[in-house]
């Protein structure tokens, strides 16, 4: 799984049917201390995450399809949690 920060949204009307009525979040990828790594991923929102929130991203197809409840969904990345705090080497990183 990956850590990310919600930096925006993608809006589309012409898309695969599975994306109808689902929010797509642009998530900037973070390292274990909450620092921006420069990468990003577009992920389906499963937890109503908001802009600026640090989130937990599942980036694996079978798990993602289980989360959205469709075994044929062409989805790999899903936001599955909102992160409150990171603890690394005994050091705490507040990310809210």
């Amino acid at each position, binding site marked *: 799984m990956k850590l990310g920060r919600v*930096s925006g949204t993608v809006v589309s009307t012409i*898309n695969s049917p599975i994306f109808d009525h689902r929010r797509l979040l642009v998530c900037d990828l973070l390292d274990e201390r909450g620092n921006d790594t420069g990468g990003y991923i577009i992920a389906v929102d499963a937890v109503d995450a908001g802009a600026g929130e640090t989130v937990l991203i599942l980036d694996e197809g079978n798990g993602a399809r289980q989360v959205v409840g469709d075994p044929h969904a062409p989805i790999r990345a899903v936001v599955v949690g909102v992160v409150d705090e990171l603890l690394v080497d005994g050091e705490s990183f507040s990310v809210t």
Partner: protein
Amino acid sequence: MQLAEVIGTVVATEKVEGLTGVRFLIVQPLDRDRKPDGRPVVAGDAVEMAAPGDLVYVVGSREAALAMPEPFVPVDHAIVGIVDAWERSG
């Protein structure tokens, strides 16, 4: 999924069974500032409406094949949506 811009089309008459009728477009993957990121790739058009100049989002690997009408086809990138708005906050 990644953002990409459609920059061209591919015409291929002779194709593997299952790819009949599938449109192939050349897409340039973009970074989050919409600048080119890596080499262009050929993607199947799962929305059947994308055209050169469109901003799209693409899936790769197994998910690309799942996006196509026939889910067991040799496709490794697929366009699954055309972007109307790409909003960045902060």
